[in-house]
């Protein structure tokens, strides 16, 4: 951030230098405040609830971090987790994006090396807010590269509180995205920085930053596709320069090498289709570079000859490479794409072929209100930002536009990727607001100075020049920022223009005299009233945004989801059933007992209860999940057999019918049927539906009313109120009085939200048989023992 000072200071006289120093300090201070804002707006969850890890995936990350901090990095890479996916287990070190864990782990290590007693949990809880502050600073840098300091500060402030990002990075939401957004923005910043300076130093940093992004999140493929797209765009629009080459070529080479170091990526970095675009563009870039090189060497006539030659050869090579790639890709069943990536390209793919991806709510396409909820007024500011990016279009601003357009597409496919859109929307809104304020304040200055110095009736543009000068002398906070931004804008223009004319030599530019775009200045002067009203309206708009963001942070996105609260007349009522159940499991069952539940609760069970689970949120084995789904949708005896074959001792179900908790297992049940039916055809979805409708009341099908999930959820439920009224579904349940034959209730939480059942041991029922046998005739015990094993093989 202190970077622009030396150059401007060198050019300006002594008072200007002081002013710039003041501006720099002010800018730094503003950034500090933005960082504080970004951090503190995410603390609502800690203040309103408690310092606790949220939701599902963060619990896994937390558990991994605990392991890392306890056992060290080498143990972490080699960690085979036998507490999950029983009996398969899971290789954690090779299947996890380690960026977040390593980040939090090293923060914890550093803090403890200084003898500050912070627990791993505390560090994990506050990692996301810390990285949000980092992300807003990175946004400042990125926007500054494109449009100058003013836009940078604006964008940073907007990003600090954009609800979409808050939803993934409140304190306690310890998930990959929290760190990844920072890495994403910072990588883009370094790319643009390299593109603007042509410095190999930044190119190397860029590759390292990309490496960090690869470590952090699967979304790194977005970077490795977006940057090539931009490079291609630059080449196509005739913006090729050696800076572009320096910005791109080291990134591909170093970045790919580094990415291949991450175990979860490994050879995927060169083998899967997600990465091919970058290599293709890499080749194209070289061809283009070669063409420019030849062009410089040869006379125009010779060049034409050479050109045809090179193009034919180049195309031939390209076709060959493409053909090989296509052949490679076509040989793999998924065409080399992972399921999630495919569902990005074809939004209907998942719902057709992979129910397990479709069953996750964050993989659904978003609705319109969610756009308003997540980016609010930014949705209206973004078009203005795009226009502003075209005046004038630079390499950097074209990148912004490209980033926005692709991000909008992806966010339209998956709710989750709204998160990628958020920085783009913030940056463009920041640019829009900044240039709007720029225009408005400048014309206010101009009009005011015209009112005061009535005598000097000079032409518009010269006064506009003067107004910028007077701006400088007054030096109020906004105007300083504005002038700063104007200067930097000019500077970038300076460095842009010659590069268009003379494509090879871009270093010499710095000394050249700035060419002021006079026409623009004349256009941008507005009437005083209009500019005052415009400024006020923009401030009001900003105010709305801030209010919305604070509301979203405080009310919508801060709930940790493992603790629920409801407000009643007597005050706050806390539903802490999940932790009650997990604590019970952890203290009152054997360490090696296996707990079966739907996969949503897998991570929490392993992290909080420290018990082995059959399936968890890392949905890597569809068959295994389908087995649990089948068991849940089978009748009691068949389910018992499946669970017994998996060595399961306890079955955990989440039931919201008593208190009205809607995301319970009965509402998720159709997915269990679908996923189970996908692998085991004897489970048929229509058997559970009455006339295509999913219901558990008296109209429900007998299959539904006899399946394990129904029984475990509603066992003795009718005795609570005498009717069996389910508050989530809003009707009385279908089958009210029934007994469990193969399972016994061992624990139900205070609000009945979690119910834990134990598989009855075999001998109980065998003994019944034995008694019968004994009553008929005194048979030998060997016969009984022989029969004992029979039924459950």
């Amino acid at each position, binding site marked *: 951030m202190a970077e622009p000072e030396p150059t401007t200071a060198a050019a300006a006289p002594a008072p200007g230098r002081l002013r710039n120093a003041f501006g720099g300090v002010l800018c730094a201070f503003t950034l500090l405040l933005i960082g504080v804002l970004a951090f503190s707006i995410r603390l609502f969850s800690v203040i309103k609830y408690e310092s606790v890890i949220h939701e599902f995936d963060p619990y896994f990350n937390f558990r991994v971090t605990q392991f890392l901090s306890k056992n060290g990095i080498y143990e972490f890479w080699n960690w085979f987790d036998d507490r999950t996916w029983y009996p398969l287990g899971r290789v954690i070190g090779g299947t996890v994006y380690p960026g977040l864990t390593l980040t939090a782990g090293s923060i914890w290590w550093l803090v403890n090396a200084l003898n500050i007693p912070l627990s791993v949990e505390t560090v994990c809880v506050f990692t996301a807010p810390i990285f949000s502050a980092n992300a807003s600073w990175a946004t400042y840098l990125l926007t500054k590269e494109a449009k100058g300091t003013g836009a940078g500060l604006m964008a940073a402030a907007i990003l600090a509180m954009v609800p979409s990002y808050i939803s993934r990075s409140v304190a306690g939401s310890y998930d990959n995205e929290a760190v990844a957004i920072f890495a994403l923005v910072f990588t883009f910043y370094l790319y643009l920085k390299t593109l603007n300076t042509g410095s190999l130093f930044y190119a190397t940093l860029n590759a390292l930053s990309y490496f960090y992004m690869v470590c952090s999140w699967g979304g790194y493929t977005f970077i490795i596709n977006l940057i090539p797209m931009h490079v291609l765009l630059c080449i196509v629009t005739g913006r090729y320069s050696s800076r572009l080459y320096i910005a791109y070529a080291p990134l591909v080479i170093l970045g790919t090498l580094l990415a291949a170091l991450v175990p979860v990526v490994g050879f995927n970095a060169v083998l899967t289709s997600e990465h091919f675009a970058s290599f293709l563009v890499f080749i194209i870039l070289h061809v283009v570079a070669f063409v420019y090189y030849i062009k410089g060497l040869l006379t125009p006539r010779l060049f034409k000859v050479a050109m045809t030659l090179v193009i034919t050869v180049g195309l031939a090579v390209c076709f060959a490479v493409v053909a090989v790639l296509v052949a490679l890709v076509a040989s793999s069943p998924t065409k080399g794409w992972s399921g999630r990536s495919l569902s990005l390209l074809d939004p209907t793919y998942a719902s057709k072929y992979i129910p397990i991806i479709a069953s996750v709510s964050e993989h659904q396409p978003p609705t319109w209100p969610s756009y308003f909820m997540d980016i609010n007024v930014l949705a209206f500011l973004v078009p203005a930002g795009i226009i502003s990016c075209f005046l004038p279009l630079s390499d950097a601003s074209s990148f912004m536009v490209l980033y926005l357009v692709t991000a909008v597409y992806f966010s339209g496919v998956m709710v989750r990727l709204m998160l990628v859109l958020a920085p783009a929307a913030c940056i463009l809104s920041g640019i829009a607001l900044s240039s709007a304020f720029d225009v408005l304040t400048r014309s206010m200055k101009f009009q005011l100075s015209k009112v005061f110095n009535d005598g000097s009736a000079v032409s518009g543009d010269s006064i506009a020049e003067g107004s910028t000068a007077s701006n400088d002398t007054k030096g109020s906070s906004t105007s300083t920022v504005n002038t700063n931004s104007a200067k930097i804008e000019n500077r970038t223009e300076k460095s842009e223009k010659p590069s268009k004319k003379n494509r090879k030599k871009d270093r010499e530019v710095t000394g050249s005299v700035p060419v002021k775009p006079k026409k623009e200045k004349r256009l941008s002067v507005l009437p005083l009233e209009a500019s005052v009203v415009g400024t006020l309206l923009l401030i009001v708009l900003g105010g709305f945004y801030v209010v919305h963001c604070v509301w979203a942070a405080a009310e919508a996105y801060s709930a940790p989801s493992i603790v629920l609260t409801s407000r009643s007349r007597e005050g706050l009522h806390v539903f802490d059933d999940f932790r009650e159940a997990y604590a019970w499991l952890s203290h009152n069952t054997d360490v090696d007992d296996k707990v079966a539940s739907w996969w949503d609760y897998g991570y929490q069970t392993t992290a909080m209860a420290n018990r082995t689970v059959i399936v968890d949120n890392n949905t890597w084995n569809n068959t295994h999940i389908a087995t649990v789904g089948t068991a849940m949708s089978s009748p009691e005896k068949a389910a018992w057999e499946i669970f017994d074959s998996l060595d399961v001792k306890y079955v955990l179900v989440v039931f919201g019918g008593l208190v009205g908790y809607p995301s319970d297992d009965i509402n998720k049940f159709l997915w269990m049927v679908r996923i189970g039916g996908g692998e085991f055809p004897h489970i048929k979805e229509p058997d559970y539906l009455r006339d295509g409708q999913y219901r558990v009341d008296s109209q429900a099908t007998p299959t539904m009313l006899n399946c394990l999930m129904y029984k475990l959820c509603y066992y003795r439920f009718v005795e609570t109120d005498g009717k069996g009224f389910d508050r989530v579904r809003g009707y009385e349940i279908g089958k009210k009085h029934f007994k469990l034959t193969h399972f016994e209730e061992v*624990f139900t939480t205070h609000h009945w939200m979690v119910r834990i059942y134990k598989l009855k041991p075999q001998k109980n029922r065998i003994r019944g048989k034995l008694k019968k046998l004994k009553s008929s005739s005194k048979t030998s015990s060997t016969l009984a023992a022989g029969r004992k094993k029979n039924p459950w093989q």
Partner: protein
Amino acid sequence: MAPSLHSLPTTVFLLILAVAVASAAAAASPSSPPGEDGIRVVAAEKRIDLTGPIVKVFLTLKVQNAASASEASYVLLAFTPTEVQHLAIVKATRAEGKRKKKTYVPLPVEPSHLADAPNGASLYAILLSTPLKPAETTTLELFYVLTHSLEPFPAEITQSESQLVYYRDSAVILSPYHVLEQATYIKMPSNRVESFTRVDPTSRSGPEVKYGTYSNQLPNSYLPILVHFENNHPFAVVEELVRKVEISHWGNVQITEQYKLRHGGARHKGVFSRLEYQSRQSISGASSFKNLLARLPPRVHSVYYRDEIGNISSSHLRSDSYKSELEFEPRYPLFGGWHCTFTIGYGMPLQDFLFQADDGRRYANLTFGCPLLDTVVDDLTIKVVLPEGSKSPEAVVPFLTEQHLETSYSYLDVVGRTTVVIKKKNVVGEHNVPFQVYYEFNPMFMLAEPLMLISALLFLFVTCIAYLHMDLSIGKSQAS
């Protein structure tokens, strides 16, 4: 399964009976009266309180020294090996003065190795403040607490059953002296007494059983009895308690208590039905408990109650000027054999606990024991973390404990904080007495960490200034 369960305690009982008979026989042999053969117990009354999970015994002994004997400086008390194992605390007082000016003087009690007792029984010596002259009579009031002495029988119960326990003792007082006249009263929590051993004369009135009066019992007599009765009192057992007391001279004493709690009663068996538990609270899970009460010092602040997976949001704090009471619930009701762990932490103002001794040393006056009411702590560890730079720490505890020193680090410590670790097993409410930790401390050490921070920041700024004013680039001279 059932008959074998029945038979086991019975055999145990028979075994004990046999041992006891043997011991009684041994006691009857003339060689046994040990030590001071001059003392005899004129009258004894033993009141056993079985209403709670902890057995409390009040023993009144009227002791007389023989006319011919020499002065007696102590009186011996005998315990069986099982009693010694479960004995948490023994207190003795001696009544002095006549009727109206009667005062009770506490007397020290020590395990005695002076004389052997038969069958592994242990002797404790009550050291008299003024020796007992020949032919003098005095009254000793004894109080002792036995933990884990109520054995649940049946050992496993379902949710709807109530908890029955066995208590084993002797109808007569085990004593190395001749006891002329004695009676034993056993008080139980309710009228539901399943059975009790009869050693005539024995009488029962409501929840109380009286053994005696017996007269002229020989030394070391033992008549085993067994009482079987209902006790639905919560058997809360803290298996392990680590109390960490951090003293900061900036004005705060921070206490962190980590509990490992267990329901020590009859094990829960089979189904736990929340429905039954919620709808029929009086009969369902009678022996379970869901509330605990901790008595904390007055003026505590920032109290928290959590476990390893987060905050537990079911606690109430009531404070007045004498005490604070923290009423809290574990995450789930505890049935027999169920465990839970939790942490309670609170801060207290320093001036209530830290004082300056006459010799210039400082001392922290803290309370020993466990703030939970009616609980047994099997294993108590108190760690008093003194401020960094404290020297020559010394803990003064009124009873025998195991002590050692440690060094712990927190909040930017360089040399570490001296930590006094005090350990004791089998702690009950009667152990909640003040103890002192003396140490030397130079207030200059309080400034060490702020100064360290200041210098670190100073260094940072100086580095920044130096960096901004230095030109480290290689190509710069060329450009200019």
